Structures are given as structure tokens and as C-alpha cells.
């Protein structure tokens, strides 16, 4: 059991090293900074700029989190603090079903509903014209997709706060909302952050649903109504067809390495923040 546990740790290291080795050819040809900051993606002309993909990932993940965190937080607060147990009995199974749906279904739903909505309603509303395959559509689909995950995590976290603590707060005359805001949320802040990190990692790595609604244009987005091309979509779309070009393969491996690195750094950083909060 000890060996199994340790080997899972080694697996992370091995993956990182493997990706780096595969990515190294392109790092020999271009400097790291060039790769990350250049915007031109023309593999045939030996131009590999990852900036659009990096920005695509950040825009889409950011938007998805901005949409999903407040909604799921309020849902979880309602379910744990306010709702009747009958409501919970009905809602929990649905949340589980939603959390278990394959992401391709979210992608189809996004194509059928969100993309037309963006192109016919949201974009004309601000006087723009788009196909609908945009950061906005992508963010909404991903946001909706992680809501069930976040809600279940938040519910788990809020339920861990002892009943006595809530009662002690009520006994001082606090309302339910005051008790939630001042005591439950404060007590669970480390857990909330951990849940958000998990959701963020999930969003950054999501592939299928993203490919279906993001537009797949290698241009760094400037607004919510621009098309985008997040890193996972880049890898999945191109991996099959570039075997003839060694540098292309290496470039995609480098893309995977960036994603790996971003998620890893994000996780480590949040762990540091957690430590800080817990120490207080």
C-alpha cells in the first residue's frame, strides 16, 4: 500500500518529465519566452506562438469560475442552511446525475442552445456580430458543467460545520443569513478555496465540451464575444494529423506541458494560501 501510494506521486513526476522530454525539441529551436509570447501559430512555417492558447484557456476558465462559483455557493447555502429535507432529497440525486453526465453532452447542449443564444441574442444586444462560438459560450458551458461538482463539494464542506456552532450563533440573536455569512463561510474558507481549486483544474483541463463551442481560432481573445482556442482543444484537435512533422508533435507536447505546469502551479499556490489561512 505504501508503494502504491508513493508510485502515484512518482507518476506525477514521471508525467512532467515525459512531457518535458517530448517538448524539448521545440525548446531547442525557440526560446521559452518566444513560444509563450508569440501570437503566430503557423506550424507549416515553423511559427509556434502559444499566447493565443494560453489566453484562451485563462479567459474561458476565468469566466467559467466567475459564473459557477457564486451560483453554486448560493445553491449550497440554500440546500444546507435553509431548505427543508424534502427539497434536499429531491435535489441531491439530480446533482449527482448532472455531475456524472459525460462532457460531450454538455458540449452538444452548448452547441444547440448556448451558441445560437450568443449569436442571436447576446451579441446583437451589444451590437456585435458573431457565429456564437465564443469565449462567452464556452465559459457558460464550462460554468454550468462544474456547478454540480462545486455544489456537492460545498454541501459536503458546509455540512461539516457542527450544528452546535450554528446554534451558538443563533443564540446570540443572529439571523440565519448572519450565521451563514459570519460563521459558516468563515469557518469553511479553507475548504471553499480547495473546492474552487479542484473546479478550476477541472475547467482548465476540459476538452470535448470546449472543442464543440469555442470556435477554435488561434487568436488571443480580446472580449467575451471573440472566438478562442484553449490548450486542451489544440492538443485534441491536432494530435492525430501531425505525425509527419516532428516539431509539430513537440509543439503539442509543449502545449500539454504548459497545461500540466499551470495546473500544478495553481494547485501548489492554493496550497500555500490554504496554509496561510489555516495558520491564522
Amino acid at each position: 500500500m505504501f508503494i502504491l501510494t508513493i508510485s502515484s506521486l512518482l507518476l506525477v513526476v514521471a508525467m512532467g518529465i515525459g512531457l518535458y522530454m517530448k517538448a524539448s525539441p521545440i525548446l531547442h529551436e525557440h526560446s521559452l519566452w518566444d513560444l509563450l509570447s508569440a501570437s503566430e501559430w503557423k506550424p507549416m512555417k515553423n511559427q509556434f506562438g502559444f499566447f493565443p492558447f494560453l489566453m484562451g484557456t485563462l479567459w474561458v476558465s476565468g469566466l467559467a469560475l466567475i459564473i459557477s462559483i457564486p451560483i453554486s455557493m448560493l445553491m449550497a447555502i440554500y440546500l444546507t442552511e435553509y431548505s427543508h429535507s424534502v427539497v434536499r432529497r429531491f435535489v441531491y440525486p439530480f446533482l449527482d446525475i448532472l455531475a456524472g453526465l459525460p462532457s460531450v453532452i454538455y458540449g452538444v447542449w452548448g452547441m444547440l442552445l448556448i451558441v445560437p443564444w450568443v449569436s442571436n441574442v447576446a451579441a446583437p444586444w451589444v451590437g456585435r456580430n458573431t457565429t456564437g462560438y465564443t469565449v462567452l459560450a464556452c465559459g457558460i458551458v464550462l460554468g454550468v458543467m462544474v456547478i454540480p461538482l462545486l455544489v456537492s463539494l460545498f454541501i459536503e464542506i458546509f455540512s461539516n460545520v457542527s450544528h452546535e456552532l450554528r446554534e451558538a450563533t443563533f443564540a446570540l440573536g443572529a439571523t440565519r443569513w448572519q450565521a451563514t455569512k459570519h460563521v459558516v463561510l468563515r469557518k469553511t474558507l479553507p475548504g471553499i478555496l480547495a473546492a474552487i481549486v479542484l473546479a478550476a483544474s477541472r475547467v482548465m483541463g476540459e476538452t470535448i465540451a470546449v472543442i464543440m463551442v469555442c470556435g477554435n481560432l488561434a487568436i488571443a481573445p480580446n472580449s467575451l464575444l471573440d472566438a478562442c482556442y484553449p490548450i486542451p482543444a489544440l492538443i485534441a484537435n491536432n494530435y492525430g494529423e501531425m505525425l509527419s512533422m516532428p516539431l509539430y508533435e513537440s509543439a503539442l507536447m509543449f502545449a500539454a506541458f504548459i497545461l500540466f505546469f499551470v495546473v500544478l502551479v495553481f494547485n501548489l499556490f492554493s496550497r500555500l494560501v490554504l496554509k496561510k489561512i489555516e495558520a491564522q
Partner: protein
Amino acid sequence: MIKLFSGKSGGHDNFSVNNKFPHPANMRLSTHSLSVYIGGNPILKHVNVEIPHNKITCIIGPSGCGKTTLLRTFNRLVDTIEGVKITGVVQLGDRNIVTAGPSELTEIRRTIGLVPQRPCPLPMSIYDNIAYGCRIHGISGRKKLDAIVEYYLRAVGLWDEVKDRLHSPAGKLSGGQQQRLCLARSLAIEPSYLLADESTSALDPLSSRTVEELFVELKKDYSIVMVTHTLRQAKRIADHVIFMYLGEAIEEGDADQVFNNPRHELTQRYLDGGFS
């Protein structure tokens, strides 16, 4: 109104740390034919009791007799249990606690404080634990709160132990200190009644004795209602005793009378250790 030990008054015009809230004169607390059902099961059956002023009232009785439910009906904490139904009257002054609306409830809970069973500091600093209750009841201003925090920490004998770390998390205090902090937190909103649900049961004997002595001292200014499982404790500190059995208040009276000369046969059997 309340003069507790020798605390400082804060030095503000028209502001006194222990007289910040209005105190209506008539605050009698009593129940009339109070019944509580949880999920259709009767937990309390037609309870009629009266809580005397400035005394320690101990509610005693075997496990499951409804002691805690009775206590938690006084400040309507039973509301947090799903499927609860209350009939009858709990009278506080001229108010019926049973029918109080949300805004009245806030005020009632300020008037009837609770010391929890196990110490549970709020997830904030020592300072904020005391200040929190005052803040939600509309008291603000650094100087006022500073004075209040000091006054009540002194009142429970915690000031000297924590004055250098008022802004560190309350969770780092020892169990006994936490319980005294909880007591100070309850006192800071100037309740007339203090409900204590086995408030010493989770403490070591020494801390438990400290808290017990505090209660005895506090009865000068507060009316204390206490649920206790240990008869010895009740005998030590009770002035007034309510004996409950299977959801009914069997006997109520002066501690001397109930312990030495119970009127009811069930009370006698309980005191003799016939059941527990």
C-alpha cells in the same frame, strides 16, 4: 441596571458597558401548558413551570425526559430541528415566545442567552467572539467595543489570561478558557436569563468548578436555568429545581424542599438512584 464585579464603565457619555440595551422591568419567564412535538412524537407534555429571578434553576431528570428540549424552547432553538411543533405558551414579560416572529426572536434571544453544552468559539478572534453579539445588535465603535470586551473578559476571569492575544483565534484557547469565553460572549449582550445546557459536562473537574463558581456569582444579576445530568452538581448550586420525567414536569420547587422532602414519589425514586 446590571453591576457586575468592578469593571470599568468605558468612560463614555451615556454609554455603559453593562447597560447598553433597554431592560423592560417585567421579564417573568414561565410556561403554560407547553407541549412540543418532534415529527409527531410528544417530547414535552403540558409543562407549566416558572423560572424565578436571580436564582439558579436546575432542570433534572433521566435522559430523554425533555430537559434539553424545554431549555431550548425558551429561546426557540428547537426551531432548528425539522418537524417541530410547539403548542401552549412560553411567556416572557408580556410576550409569547412560541408565536414570536423573526425580528422578535432576535430580541428574545438577546434577552435569553445560551451557554452551549460544549465550548464552541466562533471562528474569529477572542475579541470578535465577544464583540460579535454586540455588533449584530447594533453596537459599533472601536472604543465602546474595546470597553465591552475587557469588561466581560474580566467578568469571567479571563482577561489576565488573554489580554495580550485578544486578536488571536479563539480556537487556540484551552477547553475551560473557551467555555468561559462562551459565557462572556453570552453575557456581553446583557441577557436577563442564561440558559446552560450541561455547560460543564465537557470540561475537566477544575475548569468545571471554575465555571460553576461563576454561575453562582452571576446569579446576583442573572436568572440562570441549567440542565444537568449530575445530581451532585444540582445539589451544590441549585436554588430552584424542576424535576422532569417522560416529558412532564413532575415536581418544581425550592431546592431544599425537592431534594430533602420531595412531594412526588417519582422524584424520590430518582433522587435515590432508582433510575437514571
